[in-house]
Structures are given as C-alpha cells and as structure tokens.
C-alpha cells in the first residue's frame, strides 16, 4: 500500500509535509521553472513588510563550513504588490500558501495580516518574529509577553491559522513557544537562523555588510533538532521543523524529534528540486518500514 504523506495543521490539509522555507523560494516564480509547485505540501513566501524593501547592500551572503550566512534584510515587494502580483501567481497551484509576515513593530504585523485576511489564497500566515537581521522582529522573539500579545493581535484580524516562527537566538525557546501557544498560535515553525559572523582576514572586515548574518544549512541541523524536541515537549500545538534539511533522512529525524511537517530552505540553493527528491525518498522509507502514514513518525524519538 502506498503510504499516506498527507498531514493537517489546524484544519488546513497538506498533500505532503514538505514546504519550502521563507526567504529561500521568493514568491515561487523561479522554482516553478524547476518543478510543478503543486507537488509541494506548501510554500512559505518571502517575508512581506508593509512597504517594499531593497534589503541590505551586498555582500549579503557568505559561504561557511557546511552552511551559509545571510543578511538579506527582508528585501521584498511590499504587501500591496505582493497581493496584486505574487499571490495571484500562486492561484494556479494546488499547494498550501503560507505568507510570511514581518514588521518593524507589532502594529505592522497586524496591518499586513488584516490585508491578507481578505485574500483567500493566503491559507495561513507565518509570523517572522525571529529575523536576526532586523531588530524589531528580534524584540518580539525574545520577549514572551510581547510574543503572546503579537500572536493574539494577529489572531483577532486573520481568520485562518497562524504560525509563529521562533528564533534559536534566545535563552529559553520553550518559554517563547508556550507564550505563542497561549497567544493562540495554531502551529510553530522551529527554527529560524542562528546569528553568526564570517571574517575576511585580508580586509579585517566581516564578510557581510551587515556584519552579522543568519547561519543556515546542514551546519545548524543538530541545533534545530534539539530545539524542535525541546519545543515538542513544551507545547501541544503542531511543530514545523526547519534547519539544514537537505534530504529525506533529515526529514525523518525532524519528525522523530516532534515535527509534523518541515521546511526546506538553504537546501533549495544547492538542489532546487530537493523537495521532490525528498518526497520520493520519504515515501520509499515509509513503505519499506511498513508505516501507513507519515504522521506515525512524529515524536517517536526514544530518548535515553
């Protein structure tokens, strides 16, 4: 029997648990030249802000050991053009559209979510409380009371499920996770990038104009797995795992640690068709291990 890859988060049905991560797939237009986006469980858009942003000056990416640093600085077209051009482009695909929302202050998260409330193609919103390259987001990411309030305010204006994306750059991620859960978050995305730095020894300068950037890629996978498991033990709501996923083995690991879905990010830069290969690999793994559904894997970690 063909194993069932479908999952459900807060009433939203996904054909499979593989999503593309925010900031690594634009608004889907480029990836649509690589594979049919309908094959994805979901697509999480680039962070949307109230006004368009150009982002930080180059260089804003750097290769590091088994990873990369980025400080793009939330470059995006702004909510108006996003709704007009980008969201309409996604109309024709049969995949869950999660719109990632970022703001300089709480009111901006609310303003954007309110606009998206009237766009049925925005199946869910993901609140970027954790962009390490923009200070405002980080304040909410670090402060449980603010995080709870922010989720609550967005929930009041957005009628569909809300995901809070958590930062690993905090002393206790479980505390923030519980706060978002109390605020009414329907799911959590764990984790965003880790703050890092790369240095050029000839110029004595950091390799990014922003000085620091967000570390992603396989280098952060062990951190991400630990955080997913920690959050899994702290909350009841579903967890979407993110951090250095390159292949289906990584996905199984995230599921065992407590994820019910995953996002592939930096892996897309290496292999833009990685999600397709992952879906095929995951199906084979489930089949050969006699699992009838991918859902059976979530949280099955046997700890010592």
């Amino acid at each position: 029997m063909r194993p069932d890859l479908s999952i459900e988060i807060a009433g939203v049905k996904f054909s499979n648990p593989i999503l593309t991560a925010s900031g690594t797939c634009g608004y889907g237009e480029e990836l649509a030249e690589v594979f049919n986006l309908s094959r994805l469980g979901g697509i999480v858009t680039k962070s949307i802000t109230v006004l368009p942003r150009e982002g930080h000056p180059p260089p804003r990416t750097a290769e590091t050991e088994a990873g990369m640093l980025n400080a793009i600085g939330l470059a995006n077209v702004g909510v108006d053009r996003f709704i007009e051009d980008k969201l309409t482009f996604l109309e024709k695909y049969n995949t869950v559209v999660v719109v990632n929302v970022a703001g300089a202050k709480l009111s901006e998260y609310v303003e954007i979510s309110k606009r998206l409330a009237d766009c049925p193609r925005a199946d869910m919103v993901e609140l970027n409380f954790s962009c390490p390259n923009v200070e405002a987001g980080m304040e909410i990411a670090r402060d449980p009371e603010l995080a709870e309030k922010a989720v609550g305010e967005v929930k009041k204006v957005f009628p569909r499920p809300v995901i809070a994306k958590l930062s690993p750059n905090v002393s206790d991620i479980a505390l923030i996770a519980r706060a978002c859960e109390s605020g009414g978050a329907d799911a959590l995305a764990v984790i965003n990038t880790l703050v890092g730095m790369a240095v050029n020894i000839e110029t004595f300068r950091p390799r990014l104009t922003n000085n620091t950037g967000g570390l992603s890629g396989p280098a952060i996978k062990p951190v991400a797995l630990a955080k997913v498991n920690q959050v899994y033990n702290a909350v009841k709501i579903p967890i979407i795992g993110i951090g250095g996923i390159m292949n289906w083995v990584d996905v199984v690991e995230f599921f065992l640690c407590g994820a019910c879905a995953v996002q592939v990010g930096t892996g897309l830069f290496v292999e833009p068709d990685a999600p397709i290969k992952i879906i095929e690999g995951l199906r084979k793994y489930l089949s050969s291990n006699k699992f009838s559904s991918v859902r059976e894997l979530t949280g099955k970690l046997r700890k010592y």
Partner: protein
Amino acid sequence: MSKIVVENVKIIKKKSLGRGNFIFEMAPFSKTKSIKPGQFVHIRQPRTNLLFRRAFSVYDFDAANRTLSIIFKVFGRGTSLMAKLERGAALDVMGPLGNGFKYPSKRKTVILAAGGIGMPPLYLLAKTLLSRGYDPDRILYFYGGSSKADLVDISRIKKLGIRVYPSTDDGSYGFKGFVTDAITDNVDLTNGKHHLYGCGPEGMLKALDELALSKNLPGQLSLEAPMPCGIGICLGCIKPLRAGGYTRICREGPVYDVGEVLL
C-alpha cells in the same frame, strides 16, 4: 517558461592552460538543446561542506556531441577541489542559466573586450556570430591580461579567423597597457559603427562602461558575483542599478547594457 535542468555529466577532457587555469569538457548534456553566448552553468562542488555551486560561463557547446566546455581559474576552495578532479569524474551541472548576450546589427563592427578569465563567453559569442553570418573582419577580439600567461587559449580564438588584439599590462605580449587603451589605440570609436561586448574583472568592466558611455558606444557587459543559488531565489548576487534598486546577476543578468549597472 524555460525549464531549469540539472545534468549529471562526466569530465571527458581536462587540460591545464597554465597559471592555475583549466579547461573541462563535459558530457553528455542530454537535456540541454541550445545555449546562448553569455549564459552560465552552475556546478555543484565535489564536497558537501562547500554548499554553494560555482558559476562558470559557457566556453563552448557542441549540440551534436552533447559536450559543454568551461574554463576556470583556481581561486578559492571550490576551484582548488575542481582542479583536482580528473577525466571520468562525475559532475552535477545546472543550467544553462542567465540571459546571455543580445546580437548586434550586422552593419556594426563588433568589439569584444575580454580580461583574463572573462574570455570564454566572448569566444562563444564570436563563434556564434560567425555561424550567423557576421563578417570575421568586423569582429575585433581584444584580449587582455597582466602578462602573456594570462591570455589562456588564445590560439583557439585566433583559429576563428577574426581579428585578435592581445594586450598585457607588463607588455610581455601584444599591446602594453589595459584593454581599454588597446581599443582606443586601434579603433576610431567616433563613427558610431561599433558595438561593444565586455567580460572580465570588475575594474576592467568599470573602465569599459565609462569608455562606452563617454563615446556613446552601445554594448553589453557580462558581470560576475558569487552566486549561492544561480536561479534568483537567494537574493545574494545582487548589484545596484544606476536607475535605483538592485538586480540579481544570476537572474536578470549576467549580461547588462552598458550604463545599466552601477559598477
């Protein structure tokens, strides 16, 4: 909508060109139908701790034999590893990517200005123009380097039968000086009959850009930047546009009209 493909190919020929420059001839490119001069391929590195692919302009493409060639110079960790690969080694090659050059009017005299490792795309452009019926006497290939050894594979350009003007900073071969000086020394740019193409180090591109703008010379420049993704999704390889905002070199480029990008 053009589909982006990944080809699993082998190195069928490797040749050292000296000074850390190498040619790889790779095959079979079974899904790639045609390639425009100025387009590039994005090659996955032979070690997983190097995450980013490396971008290389296409040097030559033989559709009948399904072979594609690149030239690269050992620069960092990725190209050092690539230089150690031997004939028969497998490579994961994505492409062709990028926009490629636009072709000029046949009435124009074409000036191709290459600096060092910027040579390959302009070689393919010259070859393509010839196959499209352009007059070889009106294709002028200016090839500059710091010294003679930097003018890699120049014999292949000469074999095209076009006019080749070598130049070196140290005078060890051809004209002594920069490519821009070699151009102004050999060509009367005031008659409005020329079209410029350039590829090379950023300093040279900037000089070409200034030259073209000051002489009202139409043309295109092929730019380079480290490209994490190569398909426009990471927003890493950006450069500022003169008109404001940024452009993605891998997606909107790598070829731009002179004056378009703030160099």
